[in-house]
């Protein structure tokens, strides 16, 4: 494929507007259709997003990486047996498999302060890229607080609410779930963190959770996400709650000044 100057292609003389938006504007056209380059660009982005959903997370590799930093791990299954079931039955992704339940029963004796759960969710690439580097920042902070922590639970085919069942098993006060978010075309590897105070299976609702979303290279940084999470932990410990009544009042570093940016259509 040569360049965009082929005579069969119509250029859009408003290229300069691309500076204002990540949207796919001024793509040009071949006849009325997408030029080859723009068409394949889209296919590439979609392929990355689809692979993030469908290629299974390498749990053994993740375990190794965490164990290498001397963090203990426990790999658990939900009742969603495979990816197709997982996608169609969100309810099963919120329930531990029989073997996982049995496994947790053995390990609990006295209450823990917090559980850290990592679930593949809808993007294995998000967890592959971001879980271990983020945990290597988070876990020392939690240890420094003197928190008693069980092994990091790695959950195959898990939804956010799987954390409730695990927190309940460990009688833990704080629950943090790192999960692969629904991939967008521009962010196939976005990780989210869901924080719940006194999470209990079948009882905790989404209104009781705080979410830190959009953790990826062009989104929220690990440090920004960590700052937000530690803020939520401290406030939750004070207020003894999480969710809609616990507002995240950390400031986003993104400047609001862009709102004042002129609208060229009306100048």
């Amino acid at each position, binding site marked *: 494929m040569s360049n965009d100057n082929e005579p069969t292609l119509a250029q859009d003389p408003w290229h300069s507007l691309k500076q204002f938006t990540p*949207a796919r504007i001024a*793509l040009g056209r071949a006849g009325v259709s997408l030029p080859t380059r723009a068409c394949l660009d889209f296919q590439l982005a979609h392929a990355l997003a689809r692979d993030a959903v469908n290629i299974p997370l390498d749990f053994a590799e993740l375990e190794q990486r965490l164990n290498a930093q001397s963090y203990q791990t426990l790999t658990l299954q939900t009742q969603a047996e495979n990816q197709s079931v997982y996608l169609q039955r969100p309810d099963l992704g919120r329930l531990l498999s029989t073997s996982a339940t049995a496994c947790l029963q053995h390990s609990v004796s006295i209450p823990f302060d917090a559980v850290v759960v990592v679930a593949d969710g809808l993007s294995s690439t998000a967890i592959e890229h971001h879980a271990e580097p983020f945990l290597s920042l988070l876990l020392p902070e939690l240890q420094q607080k003197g928190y008693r922590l069980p092994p990091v639970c790695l959950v195959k085919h898990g939804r956010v609410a799987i954390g409730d069942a695990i927190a309940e098993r460990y009688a833990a006060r704080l629950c943090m779930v790192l999960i692969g978010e629904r991939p967008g075309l521009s962010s196939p590897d976005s990780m989210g963190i869901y924080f719940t105070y006194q999470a209990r299976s079948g009882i905790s609702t989404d209104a009781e959770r705080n979410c830190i979303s959009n953790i990826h290279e062009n989104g929220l940084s690990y440090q920004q996400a960590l700052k937000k999470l530690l803020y939520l932990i401290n406030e939750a410990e004070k207020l003894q709650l999480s969710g809609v009544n616990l507002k995240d009042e950390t400031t986003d570093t993104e400047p609001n000044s862009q709102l004042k940016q002129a609208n060229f259509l009306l100048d």
Partner: protein
Amino acid sequence: MYKIHITQQGYDFKTLRNLMAKATPARSGDYLAGVAAVNNLERVAAQWVLADVPLKRFLNEALVPYEQDEVTRLIIDGHDNAAFAAISHLTVGDFRNWLLSEQATTAALTAVAPGVTPEMAAAVSKIMRIQDLILVAKKCRVVTRFRNTIGLENRLSTRLQPNHPTDNPAGVAASLLDGLLYGCGDAVIGINPASDNLEATSRLLHMLHDVIERYQIPTQSCVLAHVTTTLKAIEQGAPVDLVFQSIAGTQKANDSFGINLDLLQEAHLAALELGRGTLGDNCMYFETGQGSALSANAHQGLDQQTCEARAYAVARKFKPLLVNTVVGFIGPEYLYDGKQIIRAGLEDHFCGKLLGLPMGCDVCYTNHAEADQDDMDMLLTQLAVAGGTFIMGVPGADDVMLNYQSTSFHDALYLRQVLGLRPAPEFERWLQQHGIFNAENQLQQLADVPALFKLPSY
């Protein structure tokens, strides 16, 4: 009552609600809800039984109890018996035959529409193939007006959707201009605000108003905030053309959206009072989608397609300019793959048109659905053949705010070329006047942006 013996197997479906659910073509949301047929034979058995149910039966056996649900009360109390007379003797199976027959002309379908309930439309759609859904919908004609005329024969309108992740005005303007220069935006210029608050909504409303005024574009604007936010904006004097709201087919689901019929009525009256339409007063824009009631755990044992059709009763009450089924947005737990999304989109369009609504479709999917651009091309083409009123126009089909894939400006131009579909006449004249389209409605080769628009000198 709803019994059949088929290939040595007896079935008793007990209630009309159960029968409807079992007769529905397979889709993941109905399995998730636990209401779907367990196998193909049970589904077809239910379809045989359903075909013999008299249409009158739907007026006597409410699928959600009358006492408990204001959508049911709206359907029953608002039913037009005179319009129904022409089809009142038919069963569901006869109704399908009648709809396909030469007797069901555009005029006959228009006359009968107020006598058709959502459940009747849903029931007949369950025993129709894709080509039936297309053929009948194509005969329906629903024309609405605000500042232009939507829904005329051989016309296809587009909603220009210039969303931006942070509502940045220059970012919105960039996508907006891109769309206009591709001939998009006659249905509405409609923005999904990144945050649903009064200040952001008002700012966007003023901006869209100013753009439409300044460039004298024969179209209308909408900021897709919650109806309560829009009402507050109206109180503050913001220039609201169309009031937007997502609606569903049960009272409980609407509750979960924070709305009810009274609230919609209040908003409708407030928008009418503003009187901003120049050609007509259709001033509501509704969005729906199969699965929305179940996702709020408010489906009341209904299958998702019947639930969806009931939402159209809510829409119909307020004479909307546009109704949009956002078919693939909800995800694979409701519509698993391209096949399910395609059929659902065409069912929704058919049911909406049969009930007399200006039905468009957001031909769309998410990245965790088993679907791709080829599936969208199929639904897009079939919807346009069926006479779909409007589709979305998103730059490159990639909505960078809502993170899903819809249809592009290019997609609309493709349909115009292969099917000879034109934009709304007033908008078409504007496009030609400013040299965006030529007299044959083809995009002009532009060496520069039309003189009307001044670009920033960066």
